[in-house]
Structures are given as structure tokens and as C-alpha cells.
């Protein structure tokens, strides 16, 4: 109460006076805010071209208005359903298996008694997080390459010969999910592990005295304490479900192996890039901006909704 009063009197005191310290503080903000304005807000204004027939020489403002025809074209094109399906389904797999595996790792790690061993395991598990998708793409290529790859060598032992993985779209649901989990499981499990470390140890001791074994203890004591965290992290991930990891879907698939894999790996982000890069005819700038704008708006609504839900569960966990 007193603190609140203090703040109020302070506020009043400074209300009409711009002190030199205020001026210094504002001057600090100028460069960072300007950077954000140029590289974040100007492009937002540039989304106007989603409603225009953009011509490079006419500029953003000079190009002709075309209403919603860019959106219309996209909705009518056969790629629309494919993109939404692939983006949502792949992300769904990542969320499901990513969460399960990192949860499992965290729970197992929690049972490791030696601090030294915990550290070693964690360090190794986190290492892939530091690699770029390009490096990961090379590893995937070394495994899947049809002529020399490791996987086909193993399969040939069982009499299965020369499968060209880069032209088998269905297999990529599995390949991409495995790749995603491999790269992120270490880092993702850190959050759960940190939460487990915060469990009141008397709870665990009590369950031990009651004669609960490790499995029972995990199910009845450890897991319930994690449920709020799991639901919130999942909800927040769902908020980003329309945004695909461009690096994973572009490099690891070798640019969708030039079209052979689009059926399952063409996502909104890769579509925007390819259309922008490869199409020189027509209104590709306007079209891709329209798709990007759509993704951004739907994404924003989802993030706000999911965050609002997260706040209901635990006010401390929401992002805002």
C-alpha cells in the first residue's frame, strides 16, 4: 500500500517537468526505436502491396490497387489446401512428439542421481541445438542419399534396394519429425527439468515412505506437478502453428527435392519464398505478400487467443 502511494506521489511530482535525466533516458531510446521502426514497422506498411499489383518501378504507393484479387487467387489456387494442411499437420507432429520426448528426457534426467552424469547427458543432448539447419541437412543427406547413404546400406542387408528417399513424400512426415526432435529435444527438456528441480522434495519423500515405487511416483507425484507447464507450453506452441520453420522445410528437404516432396513438405513459408524467388511473371510480389499477411494475421489472432487461455490457467506463465 505504501509503495503504491509512493509511486503515485512520484508520478505527480514529475508530471509537468521534463528533467534532464528524462531527456537522457529518451535519447537512449532513439536509436533502438528507430531501428525497430525501419526494419519492423516500414515492412508492416509495405503489406499494402497485398492489395496492389506491385510494379518495381512504380513503388509501393505508386502501384495500382487491385482489391482482394491477390487473396482470391490464392484461395482458388490448388496450393492453398496443401499449404495449410502441411503446415498444420507437420507442426502438430512436432508439438506432439517434441513434447512427449522432451518430457520423457526430463523425467528420466530427474531420476539420475549423479550430478556429473546429469551434466554430461545434458551437454550432449543440447549440442544439436547449436547446429544450423544447413549442417543438419548434410547429416540427413548422408543418411538418406540413395546411392551412398547409410540408411540404404542397412536396408540392403535386408534385401531392400536403393530407395530414393528424396522422392518419397510420405516418408518425410517421419523424417522431419525425427529431425526436429533430434535437434530440439535437449533444449526443450531443459524447461521441464528446471520445473522438476523445483518440486518440493518432501512430496517425493512422503511418497517414498508410503511405499510408492518410481513408476507410481512419477505418475502420481511428478507428472501432475508438470501438467500446468505442459499445457501452457503446448498452448503457446499452438499459437505459432501457422508459422513453419523455414530452415527445416527448405534445406533439410533439399528445397523439397525440387518438387518431389511438395505434397507433404511444402509449407506456407517455403511457398512464399519460392513464389517470390522463382516467379518473374504476374503479380508474384502482391500474391506472396497477401499470403504472408494472411499468415501473420491468423498467427496474431491465434497467439492472442492461446495466450489468453494460458493466462487463465496460470497468470505467471502467459507471455503478456
Amino acid at each position, binding site marked *: 500500500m505504501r509503495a503504491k502511494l509512493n509511486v503515485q506521489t512520484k508520478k505527480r511530482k514529475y508530471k509537468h517537468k521534463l528533467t534532464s535525466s528524462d531527456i537522457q533516458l529518451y535519447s537512449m531510446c532513439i536509436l533502438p526505436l528507430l531501428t525497430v521502426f525501419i*526494419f519492423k514497422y516500414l515492412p508492416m506498411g509495405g503489406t499494402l502491396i497485398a492489395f496492389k499489383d506491385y510494379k518495381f518501378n512504380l513503388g509501393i504507393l505508386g502501384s495500382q490497387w487491385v482489391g482482394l484479387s491477390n487473396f482470391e487467387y490464392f484461395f482458388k489456387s490448388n496450393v492453398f489446401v496443401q499449404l495449410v494442411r502441411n503446415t498444420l499437420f507437420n507442426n502438430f507432429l512436432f508439438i506432439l512428439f517434441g513434447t512427449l520426448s522432451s518430457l520423457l528426457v526430463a523425467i528420466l534426467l530427474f531420476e539420475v542421481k549423479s550430478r556429473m552424469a546429469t551434466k554430461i547427458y545434458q551437454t550432449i543432448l543440447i549440442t544439436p541445438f*547449436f547446429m544450423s539447419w544447413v549442417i543438419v541437412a548434410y547429416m540427413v543427406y548422408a543418411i538418406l542419399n540413395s546411392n551412398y547413404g547409410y540408411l540404404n546400406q542397412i536396408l540392403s542387408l535386408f534385401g531392400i534396394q536403393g530407395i530414393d528417399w528424396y522422392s518419397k513424400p510420405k516418408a518425410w512426415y517421419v523424417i522431419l519429425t525425427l529431425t526436429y526432435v533430434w535437434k530440439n529435444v535437449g533444449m526443450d527438456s531443459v524447461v521441464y527439468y528446471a520445473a522438476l528441480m523445483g518440486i518440493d522434495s518432501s512430496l517425493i519423500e512422503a511418497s517414498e515412505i508410503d511405499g510408492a515405487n518410481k513408476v507410481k511416483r512419477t505418475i502420481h507425484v511428478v507428472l501432475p506437478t508438470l501438467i500446468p507447464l505442459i499445457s501452457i507450453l503446448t498452448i503457446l506452441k499452438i499459437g505459432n502453428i501457422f508459422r513453419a520453420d523455414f530452415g527445416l522445410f527448405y534445406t533439410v528437404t533439399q528445397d523439397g527435392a525440387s518438387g518431389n516432396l511438395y505434397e507433404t513438405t511444402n509449407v506456407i513459408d517455403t511457398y512464399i519464398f519460392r513464389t517470390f524467388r522463382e516467379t518473374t511473371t504476374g503479380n508474384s510480389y502482391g500474391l506472396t505478400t497477401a499470403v504472408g499477411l494472411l499468415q501473420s494475421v491468423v498467427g496474431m489472432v491465434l497467439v492472442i487467443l492461446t495466450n489468453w487461455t494460458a493466462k487463465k490457467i496460470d497468470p*505467471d506463465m502467459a507471455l*503478456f
Partner: protein
Amino acid sequence: MQKKNKLVQLMIGIIFSMLCLIIIFPFWLLLSASLSDPGVLAAKGYQIVPNPIDFSAYKYVFKNTEQIFRAYGVTIVYSVITMILNVLLMAMIAYPLTRNRLRGRNAMNFYLYFTMLFNGGLVPTYIVVAKYLHLSNTIWVYILPMLVNPWYVFMIRTFFKGVPESIIESATIDGASEYNILFGIIMPLSKPVLATVALFTFLNSWNDWNTALIYITDEKLYSLQYLLQSIMENINIIKQNKMAASMTGNQDIPTETVRMAMAVVAAGPALIVFPFFQKYFVKGLTVGAVKG
């Protein structure tokens, strides 16, 4: 009971050993593919344990060092500049945002926060950066668009808030300017969070390949990851060199193993250096409180 516990520990140990092997295995495969003998490779494919070990791919990579070392140079330069500028700029915006009495603070919070919710997307950003700012094919395109990430700003702000106000007050009484307070007191006291942010931005820059994909056509300005990506996409880059090499009478170039050797040379340093800073990366994830 004791015995049972030991058994459980043993089992968990085995599970983790296997897990770690799975994680490490792709790294090993990459390395051993790069060390395979081209002849054996052509006949049998990549070897899990290369026999005989063959360094010709590395000899080739290090003989034709110009391209890869230049990419290393470019990447190091822009990564370091981005890291330094980012920490400076983000501290400079985070500090005023901790001051409750500063008017417009909430507006500024929202101004930053909104960029996390909504963005212009690839094409409008491209038009601004390439057409209006003319940053294509300059090193600045790697740096400027990456500056001031609101997520990290809020992380820094939360940490700055933890610095006792009495320190700031007594410095003000001693006549210190706000700049003195930020650079002389707050920032030195906030090394952990600044280190975390510095490392994350450095890692992002180091692994950045799509900036070059979009904005760079000048081979001299290729980032390391993009050079690697373009070799993957287009083996012709090696083959062009191969033609040049065969004209000067060099032997055939083992493209498959050279690719892999390039990947190892590019991944190696990151693999060795970043895990040392793991502590800070982990901290960055577990500092959840970024709210305003």
C-alpha cells in the same frame, strides 16, 4: 531396496547412453563420410568406420581455402558486430523501460511488443531492405535487420529491474548521468543476462543462411552457412573448381567427400565452442518472466 535402486540407476544409465549415442551418431556419420576413400565410397557408399581413412577431401578443402576462409571471415565479422551492437542497443532501450516514472514507457513497451505479434513478412521486408535501403550485397544486411529483438529486450529489462534502486539513487545523488549509470553500474551488474543475450544473437548470426539466400548474390559476401547451402544445392560450385583443377593437371576431385568435409569444417568450431557456454543458453530459456 538398495539393490533395486542400483538396478534402476543402471537402467537409466543405459537409456541415456543410448540416447546420447543417437544424438552423436549423425555427427559421427558426417565426419566418417568426409574421411571415406572416394574409391570405396563409389563402390560401397559412406562407411560408418572409414577404412582406409582418407584425407584427400580435407586436402582439397584446405588447398582451395580461399572461398571457405573468406566465408569464415565474413561470418565472424558480421556476427561480432551484430552481437556488440545488439547488446548495446537492447540495453539502451531496456534501461529506460525499467523507470516507472518515465512517461510513454507503456507506449514504448507496446511498440516493441507488437513486432512480436505481427510482421510485414518476407516480401515487404525485402522491398524495404533491398529497394529503399539498398542493403543487398553489403555486409550490413546481415547486421542491421537483426538488431533489437523485443524478446531479449524484455529479458534484459526484467534483469535490470532486479538491480536495487538504492544504488541508482545514490549514483544520481553523486551526480552521475543516466548514461553513466547504465554503462557504469547497471550493465556491469547484469553480466549474466547480457552474456546470455550476446550468445544467443551470436549463435543466430553464426547460423544465419537465409539472409544471404535472399539478399546476397556476390560470392565474396557469402556467409559460411550459405556457402555450405549453395554447395549442397549446386554441386557445380565444386565442379567449376574441379574444371579449373583438371586444367592445371590436378587429379579428380571427390565431390561427395568434399561436400562432407566442407560441412565438418563449417560445423567444427561451433561444435567445440558453443557447448562451453551452455550454462548461459540454458539460463536464457529458463528466465521465463518477460512480462511488462
